[in-house]
């Protein structure tokens, strides 16, 4: 049975619609784990081929986006296998999250050209297409090799190498202890082993944190400015846009109706959306969200909640604070220049980050920038910082991390060392996938380097 593969099959750029495609024998089952039809009577698994179903795509953290799932049954699909295409709103953040949900549900990242490859293998592309497919794979792999090379020279590679080195040494210690019981190998102390694992876990966690921050740097973050009327949303928007007017670059494929402005603030790219209302449209997917500023708020990766500091707190303000503080958010208490009479304590209690400013005069913009940097993790990044750059790299790290956690759990529960060893091998293998080596060989070599064993 072939693995289920998934990838974003539209351009990863702000656009009206984005599609995550899932293909394989169990594609519908995998998609069914992350898609909830709006109608409770229906299930994705029961959908016949060539049908669309409206609902929500979700992950462990909750709903990601409204979505239309298109179901294709083998052999009547592009790849000739069962295929589900999840059409979501176009933002890269939402698409990435959807893709990750598919991975946690059992899919694996599609290799370059893999959909086409499968289409060919399943007879959907004729024989004359074979060469073209191979060319495609070769071209893609050259590209990948080039970027892999960049990885080898980069800070990420060095970081990974350190982790790998420590894990390999731990595995070698363990293997030597186990494989040469009669030799003079020091007793393995599980406390020391756990310490090594803990360190690796921290490093990898750190890399993962920065992966998301790195994405903010590269692709921008879906940001929404909310607030009741006349608190200064538009002024803030203009300030942010105007502040950077000269270097605002519309991202290719930007549909200006959806992402109003793409703004670079320091190191951060914000894709700002207005909540004043979305356009009316005939598009079935898009129309679902129209007119519902709240849903926009829920979908955004970052919420800037604006309050009028010169007026007392209103009921609407409180409701907004309640809602937006559940998400990654920042509170802006505006109109500082007019004197602050709002209950700032109340707001500061609700939000992790609160900025007092005046959108009118620009006062406090720097603080906003700083707060945005902290909240998106960009502030923690520096130029020489290792950053995971692709979803595939991220997934390898995630898998490695899972194995390390399992190894630590085994140690905690006093499971024997052979099980711990297998978990560490798994962690090494996941990281080695980025360099194409194999755990068992690396570990065996390390044993002989480090230990005087043998008859």
């Amino acid at each position, binding site marked *: *049975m*072939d*693995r289920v593969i998934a990838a974003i099959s539209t351009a990863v750029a702000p656009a009206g619609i984005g599609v995550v495609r899932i293909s394989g024998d169990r594609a519908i089952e995998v998609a069914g784990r992350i898609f909830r039809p709006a109608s409770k009577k229906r299930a994705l698994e029961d959908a016949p081929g060539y049908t669309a179903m409206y609902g929500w795509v979700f992950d462990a953290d909750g709903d990601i986006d409204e979505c239309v799932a298109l179901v294709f049954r083998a052999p009547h699909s592009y790849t000739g296998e069962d295929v589900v295409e999840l059409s979501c709103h176009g933002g890269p953040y939402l698409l990435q999250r959807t893709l990750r949900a598919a991975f946690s549900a059992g899919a694996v990242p599609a*290799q*370059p*050209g*893999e959909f086409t*490859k499968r289409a*060919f*293998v399943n*007879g959907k592309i004729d*024989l004359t297409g*074979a*060469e073209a*497919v*191979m*060319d495609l*794979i*070769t071209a*893609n*792999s050259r590209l*990948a090799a080039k970027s892999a090379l960049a990885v080898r020279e980069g800070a990420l590679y060095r970081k990974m190498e350190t982790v790998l080195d420590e894990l390999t040494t731990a*595995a070698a210690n363990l*293997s030597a*202890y*186990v*494989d*040469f*019981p*009669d*030799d*003079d190998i020091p007793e393995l102390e599980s406390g020391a082993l756990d310490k090594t694992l803990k360190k690796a876990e921290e490093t990898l966690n750190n890399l993962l944190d920065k992966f998301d921050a790195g994405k903010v740097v590269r692709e921008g973050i879906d940001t929404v400015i909310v607030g009741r009327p006349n608190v200064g949303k538009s002024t803030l928007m203009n300030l942010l846009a105007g502040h950077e007017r000269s270097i605002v670059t519309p991202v290719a494929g930007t549909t200006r109706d959806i992402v109003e402005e793409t703004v670079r603030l320091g190191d951060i790219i914000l894709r700002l959306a207005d909540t004043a209302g979305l356009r009316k449209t005939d598009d079935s997917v898009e129309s679902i969200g129209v007119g519902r500023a709240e849903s926009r708020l829920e979908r955004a990766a970052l919420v800037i909640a604006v309050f009028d500091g010169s007026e007392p707190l209103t009921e609407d303000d409180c409701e907004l604070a309640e809602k937006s503080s559940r998400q990654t958010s920042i509170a802006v208490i505006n109109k500082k220049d007019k004197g602050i009479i709002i209950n700032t304590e109340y707001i500061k209690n609700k939000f992790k980050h609160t900025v007092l400013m005046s959108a009118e005069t620009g006062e406090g913009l720097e603080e906003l920038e700083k707060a945005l940097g902290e909240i998106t993790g960009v502030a923690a990044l520096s130029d020489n910082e290792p950053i995971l750059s692709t979803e595939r790299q991220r997934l390898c790290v995630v898998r490695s991390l899972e194995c390390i956690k399992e190894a630590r759990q085994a140690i905690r*529960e*006093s*499971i*024997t*060392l*052979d*099980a711990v*060893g*297998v*978990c560490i*091998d*798994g962690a090494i*293998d996941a990281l080695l996938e980025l360099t*194409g*080596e*194999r*755990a*068992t*060989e690396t*570990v*065996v070599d390390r*044993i*002989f380097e480090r230990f*005087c*064993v*043998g*008859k």
Partner: protein
Amino acid sequence: MGYIAGEYDVAVIGAGHAGVEAALAAARLGCATVIFTINLDSIGNMPCNPSIGGTAKGHLVREIDALGGEMGVAADANLIQCRMLNRGKGPAVHSLRAQIDRREYSKYMKYRLETTENLDIQQAEVVKIERLGERWRLLTHLETEYIAKAVIIASGTYLGGKIYIGDLVYESGPDGMFAANRLTRSLSELGISIRRFKTGTPARALRSSIDFSKTERQPGEEPVIPFSFETKEKLENRVDCHITWTTRKTKEIIEKNLSRSPMYGGRVRWVGTRYCPSIEDKVVRFADKERHQVFIEPCGLHTEEMYLQGLSSSLPVDVQLEFYRTIPGLENVKIMRPAYAIEYDCCDPLQLSATLEFMDYPGLYGAGQFNGSSGYEEAAAQGLVAGINAALKILGRPPMILDRASSYIGTLIDDLVTKGCSDPYRIMTSRSEYRLVLRQDNADERLTPIGRRVGLVDDLRWENFRQRQEAKKRERKRLKETVLPPTEQLNRLLVSCETTPVSTGVRLEDLLRRPQLDYQKLAPVDSQRPELDPMVREQIEVEIKYEGYIRRQRAAIDELRRLESRLLPDGIDYSEIKGLRKEAQEKLNRIRPANLGQASRISGVSPADLSVLVVWLGSRGRAENSES
């Protein structure tokens, strides 16, 4: 040419641990078989340590036994001490290791060969082999000629053997036997790529010259656990081993005399033998290590020869004696046979397929040290596989290929034929990515059905196996269905084992899953339990305790088998497949993997190359379909 002395199905060259298994397997499967040895008195000889088993090696012996091979039964019959290594480190790495009476073992094996139907034994050196149509012609030093459909080369360290002791260099096989000096040339003429490996062995010392009071006694463990699933009689520990350590003085003497070693004196350039390092290698490579461990092992019940494990050397005899005498207990040691290094010819195993047949020489097989491995158990495992496959081919039956997920035997062979080796290859538990599944306790479950299909598992063994499986199934069901009420007795027991008491009924299976509990500890509260074979009990316990980990390994195994089922047909010219990178083309052409799984393990073959292969396979399949 001489006269034709015999025509056979299978001819085996060499009667060491590989040759013996190969010949027995082929003969038992009904093939007319002949086995050649330079000296009939060295059949199944142990020219190095007098022991069988050890980590991962013990697994191999169990696997050989489960398939219907001889080594496990023979080891049990001649065992003089036994230990289960790695207790407490986990079931995956529990390994049996036994001291063996080496002369008795050799006698046993010789008698086995002599009394096996379809098997002839010849004391002769094979000096030449050549093709004769679809068959092979063998010529011996006695100028007799043999014709065989299949030939298995299991030449050990005899092939081109050369012994080094200090300045001394002389042609010799192991243990003072003659070397086989002429066959290499014949193999080279055929076009087989031959290389030279080195190994070594320590001195044998006279027991009465050793002062054991200065050493640490290492007795066997009770009860003795047999290697073979079929050994029913109780075995006994009959000897002790002893442990001592080298001293600072030992190190000094070795360092002072390094120039007199063939290697450090610069007279030879040996690729480091990682698993069998000499004491001088250890002193040089691990210079900061103060002392090295030495095991003193008896070579048998009716001999005073003691094997000094850890002291292999190629230093001159006088230096050997000098440094041996710096070791506590060995102050007045008398050496009976000196340590030596031996160099020998072997093949590059990348020329072989997983059946151990040479890809370019149908009917020609290699096994054991000839294939670049080290160790009796590794040799026996390959001998068995080569013997079985030679016979199956002659009988017109499909080959027996053991994949990595089935066994350590499969792992060992896959490593050799896919990755090759640059120094003698030793099996280790860390070589297997599936080691929680490949345990010594379940070798029968993994391999006896395969052995049965092949034809080496007789009715009695099969019946015993099925009964064990039945008992296991019943007991698993009982453990799943038996619920213990939360009695005071149960909770007292749980608390005394430092695990949490229960307030509701609890299944036996769930109790067994707790790390603090085991079968034995639960005995007082599990009064209904049936009599169980200890092996079965062990299997059940491990399966329950490690269920989560085992499940994960099984998923990885499914993935492996999916790739292994995509066969790459024979005779592909990979340089003609567009899209493969050059390195991949070269490696694939050289190693010629049998399937995509094997291809994926070749270093230098990337996932993209694999994708190209999949597409290529697909287009090829379709082209063939449209033709037919």
